[in-house]
């Protein structure tokens, strides 16, 4: 890591990064609608939500009036309407992934249960939004829209029911035991369906007026599974069930409902057609769910990021004030002013928490922005397919094979810069299918990557943050509610698909050639940044990325002693760790890009003029810290996978303890691997100096007198 050399600028961090800094880094400096959403969500989070937590509202499992105040606050402050399109009464035109990500981030800054409560309403609407008929969209969006001035109407609330009581469906499995049958079908009339669904862990169920439920067909007159809308007033049983005894996210409502209702067939989400006396849902449950989860999982990922970053200020305040009021340090002495921040370990660990929080937020927001882009291009793609009469997943996949070469060519041209064939580049840039393929290949990686890494590693780092607060950390009144946040992160790692589901998805999508082509270009980009002496650890990352790619390629052809290829979907021991390694690398890459964005765009904001160099230096050091950690994690995983499946040479026993240097195993390309490993180690030069600088900045940064929640 030769970049972090002695001519490093010495400006230090002045204050904690505020909105001006974040708007640039997370690329919404020109989106006033989003900036307003941030402010209005923040006022609910740090006002009402914080008071609820402080008043002990998390200590009950039941949904109650006190918690229901949140819904009113969401409605009044525009949070509920963020999901809606302007034609349905919303105020944000176009894609809303970034907007919803910011809402989740702000609410989770205080309490992730509040975020879950807000997001679950959107999750209920999402199947309708993504795949519903125009009429379904209009009906449910307008019912869920908060009452407008002068209107006397209670907005509807929804729940999304996929998960079923054990041993049935979780987010992953295709086996659904909720059933739909034809109850009554009169000639020329809308069929009436009998829906039986038992849910488990269904959010918002304590108060939902409608449920979007996953059911399978149990009738030969219904062709496939589907998602269907069930309403509270439908004939039959609408039993909310008992409240889940959650240890986390208690500001949201979770129940195990029992639903047995008769509904008209036009409640099938996305509609249906009838052929030869059989109802054919236009979308199976799998198609709807895929469209929904790939978006909402990004928001969940950002909930964990918010918590890590929210921990910084309370920990600094605790550390600095640790010895104040005692006999041993008068004001003005280091013991009084710095408290625990005199101890290197305390500030180094806080630096690690901060660096992880930055990387996780950068990865999450990059994913959210990417989905905004994908929404647009996907809509255009769907239009084309509709015009061409291409229907169904299989036909679409076949049609998307054609532009594959164009997509690869586009990626190469994209990163060629000035030297490229501009005409061809523009041509491919306008090709919707090419654009769709490129964006989709990346979205398919970023979504599971941020869901997996932000929440899983986030939970580990939240524990670290809690431990920095000592005993206070695990009390209910720990400032910043850090103990609760730690526990809550485990739910974020679980719901909407536990970590294994994300790893499985990644192990497929990260081998897509379109993704890998972009990844190769990123390695070059990192090398270039390292050559430009950007002091962000780009050289370290470039080598680590190269090592990962080499390992993936090696494992894709290398065989174990039984002749089986090592990189195989069922071989979780190979695919899953490699997926984990990739997440580390991706997160720090986006962290670097955000830091560079701040450096490039910051000077245009006069508010930042003075403080900008300090921010850039500090964030650069955090990047270098994170790059070293990520490279270490990736290197360790790659080495274990590359060597770990080799049996020891004859005569060396059953373990490697007796192995002498040089007498180990051999495999194709070993020199390259060893060379990359060595380079990776060497690239760590300076990483600890960056950490020292960042930690020093943490001891000097000015923080507010008091935390702004609860006030």
């Amino acid at each position: 890591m030769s970049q972090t050399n002695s001519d490093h600028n010495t400006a230090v961090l002045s204050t904690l990064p505020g909105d001006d800094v974040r708007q640039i880094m997370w690329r919404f400096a020109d989106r006033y609608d989003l900036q307003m959403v941030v402010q209005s969500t923040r006022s609910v989070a740090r006002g009402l939500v914080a008071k609820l937590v402080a008043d002990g509202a998390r200590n009950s499992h039941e949904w109650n009036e006190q918690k229901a105040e949140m819904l009113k606050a969401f409605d009044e402050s525009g949070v509920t309407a963020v999901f809606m399109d302007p034609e349905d009464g919303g105020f944000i035109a176009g894609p809303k992934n970034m907007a919803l990500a910011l809402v989740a981030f702000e609410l989770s800054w205080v309490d992730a249960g509040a975020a879950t409560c807000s997001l679950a309403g959107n999750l209920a609407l999402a199947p309708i939004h993504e795949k519903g008929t125009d009429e379904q969209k209009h009906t449910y969006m307008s019912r869920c829209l908060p009452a407008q001035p002068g209107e006397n109407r209670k907005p509807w609330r929804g729940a999304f029911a996929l998960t079923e009581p054990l041993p049935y469906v979780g987010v992953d499995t295709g086996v659904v035991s909720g059933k739909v049958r034809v109850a009554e079908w009169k000639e020329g009339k809308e069929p009436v369906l009998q829906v039986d669904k038992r849910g488990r862990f269904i959010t918002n169920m304590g108060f939902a007026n409608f449920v979007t439920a996953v059911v399978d067909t149990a009738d030969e007159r219904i062709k496939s599974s589907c998602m269907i809308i069930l309403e509270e007033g439908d004939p039959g049983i609408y039993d909310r069930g008992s409240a889940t005894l959650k240890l986390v996210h208690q500001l949201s409502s979770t129940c195990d409902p029992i639903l047995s209702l008769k509904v008209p067939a036009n409640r099938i989400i996305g509609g249906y057609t009838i052929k030869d006396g059989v109802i054919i849902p236009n979308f199976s449950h799998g198609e709807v769910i895929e469209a929904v989860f790939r978006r909402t999982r990004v928001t969940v990922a950002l909930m964990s990021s918010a918590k890590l970053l929210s921990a910084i200020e309370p920990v600094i305040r605790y550390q600095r004030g640790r010895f104040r009021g005692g006999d041993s340090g008068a004001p003005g002495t280091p013991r009084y002013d710095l408290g625990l921040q005199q101890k290197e370990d305390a500030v180094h660990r806080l630096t690690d928490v901060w660096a992880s929080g930055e990387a996780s937020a950068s990865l999450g927001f990059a994913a959210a922005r990417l989905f905004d882009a994908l929404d647009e291009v996907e809509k255009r793609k769907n239009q084309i397919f509709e015009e061409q009469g291409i229907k169904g997943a299989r036909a679409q996949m076949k049609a998307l094979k054609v532009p594959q070469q164009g997509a690869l060519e586009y990626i190469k041209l994209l990163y060629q810069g000035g030297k490229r064939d501009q005409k061809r580049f523009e041509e491919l840039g306008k090709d919707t299918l090419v654009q769709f393929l490129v964006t989709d290949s990346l979205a398919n990686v970023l979504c599971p990557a941020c869901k997996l890494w932000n929440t899983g590693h986030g939970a580990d780092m939240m524990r670290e943050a809690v431990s920095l607060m000592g005993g206070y950390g695990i009390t209910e009144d720990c400032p910043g509610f850090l103990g609760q946040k730690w526990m809550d992160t485990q739910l974020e790692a679980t719901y909407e698909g536990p970590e294994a589901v994300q790893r499985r998805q990644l192990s497929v999508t990260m081998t897509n050639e379109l993704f890998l082509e972009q990844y190769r270009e990123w390695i070059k980009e990192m090398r270039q940044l390292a050559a430009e002496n950007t002091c962000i650890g780009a050289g370290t990352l470039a080598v680590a990325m190269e090592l990962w790619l080499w390992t993936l390629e090696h494992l894709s052809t290398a065989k174990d002693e039984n002749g089986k290829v090592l990189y195989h979907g069922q071989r979780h021991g190979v695919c899953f760790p490699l997926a984990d390694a990739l997440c580390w690398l991706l997160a720090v890459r986006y962290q670097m890009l955000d830091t560079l964005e701040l450096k490039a765009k910051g000077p245009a904001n006069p508010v930042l003029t003075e403080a900008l160099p300090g921010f850039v230096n500090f964030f650069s050091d955090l990047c270098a810290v994170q790059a070293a950690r990520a490279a270490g994690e990736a290197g360790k995983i790659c080495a274990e996978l590359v060597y770990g499946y080799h049996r020891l040479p004859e005569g060396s026993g059953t373990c490697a303890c007796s192995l002498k240097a040089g007498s180990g195993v051999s495999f194709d390309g070993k020199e390259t691997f060893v060379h990359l490993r060595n380079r990776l180690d060497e690239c760590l030069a300076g990483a600890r100096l960056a950490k020292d600088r960042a930690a020093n900045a943490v001891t000097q940064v000015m923080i507010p007198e008091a935390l702004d929640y609860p006030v």
Partner: protein
Amino acid sequence: MSSGFHIVVCGSLVPDPLQTLEPIAGPAGPALKNEMMLPSVLDPWAAHALYEAAHLAKTAAGSKVWLVSLGPKAKLQQLMMTIAQKAPFELVVVDGSASGFTDPFEAAAALASAIEKIPGLDRSRLLVFGGCASASRDASVTMQMIGEQLGIADQFLGVDELTVQPSGAFKVLERIEGGQYQASECAGAPAVLAWATGNLPEPPNNPQVGMANMRGIMPALQKAQPAKVGAEGVTFAKVELPQQKRETRIVKDVPVEEIAKEIITWIKG
């Protein structure tokens, strides 16, 4: 009173009260450490004035609200992301320092001249609102000086309530010493009202209102005129924060009634 009021609210930003405020010697006199980076809020008393203005505009048909702000425009833009969501208004920006160390006379002059330039402002219907003091400067004289420059003699200070009669005349409750109110009647606009807290809660943020306001806010920020406000010729001998004082007495085995009695006696002086 059919045509309503033209209500101009004077208000700008102050550092968020939870921030660490550390006076330092800047190149142009005293300043606050990292002042530009401190998150800001709308000056609290001026904020009450804005909420009251919005409420009045809603009840008196034909009324319109302007918010005239003197402050660094890039910081004002950030503040608008919250304030624009509170109530409909048109923004007028004067680009200059909002520091607590500027001279109130210069601030008042800049604000008054910006008000004079508002196109279509009907002086006969004009109510100039603002805070009775600023959380940063706390001079409590700015609004009076704005009124003087605009030639408005009817001025009310520390206002908590304004009740408009159908004729356009109004009654005002002003805070005076001893926890009392002074009740006045005024024949009508123009008048200056420097608000204390008023009676209205802070409106919740409403991004829909904000988006509507933004259509005018961005052009207003772009065409903001610079104003020279500072404290030229003024020397600050010393600047310090109020000292934290802790006078705690621990009492044991005393009935709460007695503790309450003692506190009441202490409050009464």
